[in-house]
């Protein structure tokens, strides 16, 4: 009952292709939960389905005790959920400042200003690049912008889809420590999708493993890390 986000038996389709095959998942308030899985397992689909795009065909998604399964995307995103989507999807021709303001859409300007200061405290680089066009930022800066933009709506639940994609290890560490700090300081709840399973499981309180559109394993991060089948499938050659 206490879960902030709960998915039960959620399925999702792209036309005739079934991408999610009855997913059960829970995220409790103040938790960092990570979702790992191979390419094409359906991780991004799961994140998008939570936001109602594509919509879940069966099953139920509840957020903060409310059924959001059938709500339109914009209504869902106004209840305190924010997503930093796969591939960042920042607005390339708009400035960093404008990109951030887009994240605070529907919030009063004074509040947006204050939130922006917090984002700058987290990612000082964004302040330096404030008037630069989003499309000309480096990959890491774009990722910071995507996360910063998501934070601008002051979410309770942050969905992060592969924030480490294509980034140097140092930048990944910076972003992961930013997530941890946010979680610790503000109690922000995070659902994190990652290819970098080792770091993600170390960061997260709990983890889920998604295989072919269904959850096959779940448990505390450290516990999953210790399992031999996880090590074999997702940590090969790594740590």
């Amino acid at each position, binding site marked *: 009952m206490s879960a902030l986000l709960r998915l039960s038996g959620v399925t999702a389709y792209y036309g005739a292709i079934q991408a999610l095959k009855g997913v059960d998942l829970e995220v409790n308030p103040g938790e960092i939960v990570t979702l790992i899985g191979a390419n094409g397992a359906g991780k991004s689909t799961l994140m998008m389905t939570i*936001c109602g*795009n594509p919509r879940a065909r069966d099953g139920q998604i509840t957020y903060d005790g409310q059924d959001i399964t059938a709500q*339109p*995307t*914009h209504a869902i*995103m*106004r209840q305190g959920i*924010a*997503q930093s*989507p796969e*591939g*960042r*999807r*920042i*607005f*390339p*021709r*708009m*400035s960093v*400042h*404008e990109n951030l*303001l*887009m*994240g605070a*859409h*529907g919030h009063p300007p004074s509040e947006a200003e204050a939130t922006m200061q917090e984002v700058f405290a987290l990612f000082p680089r964004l302040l330096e690049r*404030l*008037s630069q*066009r989003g*499309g*000309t930022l480096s*990959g890491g800066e*774009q990722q910071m912008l995507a996360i910063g*933009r998501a934070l601008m*709506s002051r979410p309770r639940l942050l969905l992060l889809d592969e924030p480490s994609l*294509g980034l140097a290890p140092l930048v990944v560490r910076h972003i992961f420590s930013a997530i941890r700090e946010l979680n610790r300081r503000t109690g922000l709840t995070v659902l994190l999708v990652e290819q970098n399973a080792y770091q993600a499981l170390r960061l997260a309180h709990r983890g889920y493993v998604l295989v072919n559109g269904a959850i096959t394993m779940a448990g505390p991060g450290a516990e999953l890390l210790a399992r031999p089948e996880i090590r074999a499938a997702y940590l090969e050659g790594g740590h």
Partner: protein
Amino acid sequence: MKPLRDAGLSALVALGLFGVMIGLKTDAGPHSLVLRARPWAVAAAVAAVFFGRLAMLYWRQWRPAGTPSPRHVAATLSRIGRYAAPLLLAFAITLPLYAGRYWLDLGVLVLTYVMLGWGLNIVVGLAGLLDLGYVAFYAVGAYSYALLAQTFDLGFWTCLPLAGLLAALWGVMLGFPVLRLRGDYLAIVTLAFGEIIRIVLLNWVSLTGGPNGLSGIPRPTLFGLKFNGGGGPGSFADFFGLEPSISQRVVYLYFVILGLALLTNWVSLRLRRLPLGRAWEALREDEVACRSLGINVTVTKLTAFAIGAAFGGFAGAFFATRQAFISPESFTFIESAVVLAIVVLGGLGSQLGTALAALVMIGGAEVFRDLQEYRMLIFGLALVVVMVVRPRGLVSGRTPSVALGGRRHIGADMMSEGHG
């Protein structure tokens, strides 16, 4: 020998085109038309293309060291831009002081297109929705004013907001079904919509007069003062004790359209700085991202359509009152095409660019009227040249809508974006 081959290819294309277009000429013979071949004219044209292309390619290869680079040109242009806008405005305001009737009429025409361009710019330039049927709203505005004024005996200033409102309503009605569509599909549907409106106007004879159109549309008044050539009580000339003259009306019309155009500009600029305008621009860039930021994409697109349509409607009402006569002939697809060309040539989203493009295209077409058939040739050539030299339009690049400290212009040369 790449340049040679390239030039040869161009010449071949030219041969294919000119072989028919220039090579064959029809003359009136004694009994019927006779076909005359003009091989030398074709040869000259093809040779011109060959050497022209060759010269262009070599010029590109051995550009003299002193030639300004595109980056430099862009910077200069943006610097000129800062002065061009106020200068242009001053010129527009003072024009009636020294211009004659012909130039004022031309000014009214150009300003009408400037206004249409700025209106369409909201839809195409800001929101990124390709609308090929903008003339529909122009027509709705014109007919709304004409019918309201004639049926209910209302004045121009009363009908103007109503005409805009009705056009906006049609914008919303068009918007609803087409919002799911993107790019090409949207373009086709809006194109069809423009034609539907025109055909309805043409065939609904009892309401619109069909092909005969509507005439005797009332002229605008200034606080109830009429502008008529004859003067008489209640006229502008009578009230101020002036010699009655038609040119007073022309000057008045000129200032009316100037005011309307400036209103369009002001509203566009304001909107760009509001969250709504920013959402339009974001929508143009990435719809999925917008949705996941909690933006109601449907409503946002609808407002763009409606506001753009409203300005089309205002312009239409003005057109009706200026002409005193309207018929479906004035609202053909070519009008939509011209307005869209103005917006694209001006550099999508640029207010100054749109004004300049309207000035060049409408003013230019009018000035070159004496050249008759060469007019279209010059027009086409100008389009090609602009697209080659400045592929993103006359004034490309956008100024961020928010800035801390000085506003920085983002030049066209930095526009080749990568997403990663």
